[in-house]
């Protein structure tokens, strides 16, 4: 498992922030993107429920010639507490499997509805 920071912690302006393309080694079978959420530890990160972050990942099986959607999400900010554990949720996570292949490329985008302080990492397994 390898985790790569694609968006360091910072306040990003509203709009689309792309990342990749990234070559995906043959052994990688899944990918996960984590976007930092608001917690009591740092109330400045994505604090407003009305501010949304949309995430989309696309995978290419032909070395980046064509891409298909891999996963996408849309969430609002603010502190969320997990019912099951009573713990705050530190990140919005989307994890998905990857179709096996030898010439795979990954790219994605993060779209902010407003200026939001957050960070993003990509983890591959």
């Amino acid at each position, binding site marked *: 498992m390898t985790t790569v920071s694609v968006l360091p912690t910072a306040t990003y302006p509203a709009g689309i922030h792309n990342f990749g393309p990234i070559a995906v080694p043959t052994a990688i079978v899944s990918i996960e993107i984590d976007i930092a959420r608001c917690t009591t530890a740092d109330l400045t990160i994505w604090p407003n429920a009305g501010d949304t972050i949309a995430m989309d990942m696309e995978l290419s099986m032909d070395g980046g010639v064509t891409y*298909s959607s891999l*996963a*996408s*999400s849309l*969430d609002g900010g603010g502190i969320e*507490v997990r*019912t099951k554990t009573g713990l705050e949720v530190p990140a919005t*996570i989307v994890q998905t499997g990857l179709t096996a292949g030898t010439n795979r490329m990954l790219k994605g985008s993060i779209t902010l509805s407003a200026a939001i302080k957050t960070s993003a990492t990509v983890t591959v397994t």
Partner: protein
Amino acid sequence: MAIVRDASSPTTSTSGNLTSNGTNSSGTSASFTPPSGSWITITAFVDSTGGALTWSPTTTLAGVSFTSIANQVNASGGGAVAYRGFVANSSTGTISLSVNNGGINGQIDGAFWIDVWTGAAQSQTGAASNSGTSTSANFNGTVTTTLTGSQVVGIGCDDDGSNTPSSTDTFNEANAGSHADGLRAYKASNSGAPGTVNVNFQATTSPVWSWIVFEILPATAWASIASTPHPGRSPGIGGARFYQSPKALNAAVSSNVTVALIGQSATFTAGTLTPNTDTALAGQSSTGTAGTLLPSLAKALSGQTGTFTGGTVTPASAVALAGQTGTLSPGTLTPSLATALSGQSATGSTGVLTPNIALALNGQTATFTAGLLAPSTNAALSGQSGTFTAGLLTPSTDTALSGISALSSAGTVTPSAGGDVVIALTGVTATFTAGVLTPSGADITALPGPLDWPPDRIADTAFRRKKKRRQREIEQPAQPVDPIRVGAIGAIPIPPAKTYDFRSLAELSGKSVEAFRAEIDQEIARLLAEQQERDDEEAITLILAALED
């Protein structure tokens, strides 16, 4: 053929059907009967206190076994699973699913759905799937389909449990416990060309998803397979090919329906055959169900088009039934060609025969019912047209009944043709009722006189005649004596224009004509002897008065 969720899919509890506080949880579906050739998918989720999840589907359906599509768990104990199983032959049964968490005692709650899909390929080899986890409140799990017309299904488990999962796709949701919510979703319509298909998963707050999205391959896979580069062929239309023969390829793909029945595409279910090309069934296109065959080409049934159901045959071409078109049902025959029934076209039902061409019944057209005969041409009944009912005869031509046209009923004869009156009943037109004859023509005087007047009428008339005669005698002078009449009664002169109806008088007196006449002759002789001195006319008057009184 589109992939459709079949109505035989059993209803699944929305409150969850996998509930346990141990290390194992299981549930059983309602009994159902999937059709032959269908696919069954099992999608399930469970929230566990931890440990690896081991799923075990079993069924009482004959010949059905299940293959895992995907199994997804997350770090907090939530898991989802998907299985599929092919139904070669329809049967009725249930499906049970159990899940074990590896021995960690605690909550293990979830739910599962059983879906039956028709229109899917018999072989699902190569069908795509994808799975993952997420904490997003609104995300799309994605699968890249491999064939045109595939169906895409998804299962999601939110093991945080405070949400009510939903989807923008067709879905069913279940809340199986405090931390076990989930949903099964599928696309409302089949996918188009191969490519990315998303299944949407939503929850209200801080979900923790485990999700699976998978493809179901369609039955009509020929075009898509043909357009998909074979592993042995380089990309592009002109790519070189190095793979096995087409026959071998056909055997491997899921399009074997296309080559069924010698090149026919068809749909088969229990008791139903629906070939759809002309070469099916010895050249026929047809729709068949149990007990019903509907060939639609002229070659069917020795060249007939027709509709056949149990007990009913409806050939539609002229060569059916020895050249007849007709409708046949039990007890009824309706041939429609002139050569039917020895050359007749007719409508027949039990007890009724209606031939309608001239050759029927010795050349007659007629309608026959029990007790009723209605020939309609002059040659019927020795040349008569007429209507006959029980006890009633109505000939309509002059030659009927020895030349008389008449309306007859029991006890009644009413000749009506003027040209025959001279012949009938000595030239008199008359109306007859039982025991009564009423002549009505100009020749009424040819008969002796009315015999049917009531006595009171006769009496009144006689009285009126007597008074009128007396008045005329007073006002008019005496007439000359008719020598012939005088001769007939001796010396008494008789008015020449008078004619007396002895028959009526005799009837009034209650005597025979002969007796009455003899009595009158005696009375006249006696009166003549006594009144020789009286005036002739006065004597006659007395005689008449005596006679009429």
